[in-house]
């Protein structure tokens, strides 16, 4: 193995390790933004979706996503194979596994504090086994139909985040709001119990994101090194611009710079730049960040107050809405083929087709899965259980003693 190949492999593995740590970030954000009585349940959901995702993605998911595009349905689904074991591709399996688990764990936050643990485990399994790999195949396998169309989603604004976000949307609607969230048609605030934990989670996610985006270059030798550094910069600029923007939007609209919305703003910027981090200029990434920072605040407001969908952590807006938005904006800001760079509307059109079709897939597939689960196991815990906290009844344990 030559040195360059070793370097590339090492970069993928290190990036994958950084992305793995994002699971800790998601756990902390979700626990911090919710009430202390459900902390243990959230810990269990977040560790288990990673463990289940690791097994299921290895067992089948990876093949469905990256398997050869052969036969009539080759553009839609990879050639199935069980128990991936290709000695020269294990780094790729690892890197893609942590991505799949990220997509699955996004849903956890949107349905926090009221969902049955056993049902969540099964949903999480099907998410990493089928839902995520199939749309992933369309975009990231060279034979996938969106890939052939020229759809750009470099690190997964759509493939990872939007899929998680749209599944969150369906799940949050089907599970229903937490008791006390909407009374007489009015939205009530249910403050999170520890914003320090939440903010530590955001910092961890931000750290992990450098692996998420820059690792998606899948190489670091030769000219790739500059590309990696460039991606780190666009990623960081977009996150910073989005957090600042979200802060000022809340400062102006609510009178005070809102902490949890500013944290969501940083995440929105990271999600939005994920698709175009390798395609846009630093200035372009700042503008994408600013747009994401504005949109995420109004989207969270709209989903909460107008649509009355209870999403304790803002997952639908942060991952679904800004993921779709960031993917579309590649068609505007891509240095090669973007609208602002004289590329016309072609790339933007392709981006729209990709965003729309992946959204439809994620919504329909998760609806079918959740509908069956609702009819068989049930989605929600009992009223008593929800009021006492899931820790007490689901796990017979209290996190804070």
């Amino acid at each position: 193995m030559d040195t360059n190949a070793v370097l590339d492999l090492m970069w993928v593995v290190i990036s994958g390790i950084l992305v793995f740590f994002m699971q800790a970030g998601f756990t902390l954000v979700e626990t911090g933004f919710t009430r202390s009585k459900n902390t243990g349940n959230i810990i269990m959901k977040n560790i288990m979706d990673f463990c289940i995702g690791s097994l299921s993605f290895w067992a089948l998911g990876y093949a469905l996503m990256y398997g050869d595009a052969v036969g009539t349905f080759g553009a839609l689904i990879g050639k199935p194979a069980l128990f991936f074991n290709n000695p020269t591709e294990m780094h790729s399996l690892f890197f893609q596994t942590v991505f799949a688990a990220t997509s699955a764990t996004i849903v956890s936050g949107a349905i926090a504090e009221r969902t049955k643990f056993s049902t969540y485990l099964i949903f999480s399994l099907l998410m990493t086994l089928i839902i995520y790999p199939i749309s992933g195949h369309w975009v990231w396998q060279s034979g996938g139909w969106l890939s052939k169309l020229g759809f750009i989603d470099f690190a997964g604004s759509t493939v990872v985040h939007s899929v998680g976000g749209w599944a969150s949307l369906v799940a949050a609607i089907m599970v229903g709001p937490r008791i006390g969230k909407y009374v007489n048609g009015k939205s009530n605030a249910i403050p999170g119990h520890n914003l320090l934990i939440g903010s530590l989670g955001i910092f961890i996610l931000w750290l992990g994101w450098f692996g998420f985006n820059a690792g998606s270059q899948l190489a670091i030798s030769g000219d790739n090194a500059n590309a990696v550094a460039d991606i780190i910069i666009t990623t960081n600029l977009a996150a910073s611009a989005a957090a600042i923007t979200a802060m000022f939007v809340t400062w102006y609209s609510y009178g005070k710079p809102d902490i949890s919305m500013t944290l969501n703003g940083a995440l929105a910027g990271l999600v939005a730049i994920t698709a175009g981090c390798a395609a846009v200029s630093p200035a372009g990434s700042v503008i994408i960040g600013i747009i994401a920072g504005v949109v995420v605040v109004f989207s969270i407001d709209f989903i909460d107050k107008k649509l009355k969908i209870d999403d304790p952590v803002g997952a639908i807006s942060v991952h679904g809405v800004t993921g779709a938005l960031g993917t579309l904006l590649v068609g505007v800001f891509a240095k090669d083929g973007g609208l602002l760079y004289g590329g016309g509307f072609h790339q933007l059109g392709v981006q729209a087709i990709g965003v729309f079709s992946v959204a439809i897939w994620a919504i329909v597939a998760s609806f079918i899965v959740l509908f069956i689960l609702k009819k068989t196991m049930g989605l929600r815990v009992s009223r008593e259980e929800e009021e006492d906290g899931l820790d007490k009844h689901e796990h017979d344990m209290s996190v804070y003693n």
Partner: protein
Amino acid sequence: MKKIETIIRKSKFDEVKDALHQIEVNFFSYWDVTGVGNEKQGHVYRGVSYSTSDIQRRFLSIVVSDPFVDRTVAAILKAAHTGIVGDGKIFVSDVIESYRIRTGEKGADALK
């Protein structure tokens, strides 16, 4: 012997404590309490505004012998005062007996 119970602003606690030390009231118990009162506090969480009448205050329980009652009340009235709604309350009630556990002393002797 009287028990003087007072609910004061947390921000005034150090001043009240110093004032009590100056009149030689050197021991008392205190704890943080949440209550409901005239004051409404407006908050915004993630864009949803809500108001709560839950108020955070500090509760002091002081048992003194009769000669100390008036000056203790006066010290609290002065030290805990801001003039804004929410300064708190003082309640004085009779104490039938008190004992010092270490020595078995009772009455005013137990409070020295």
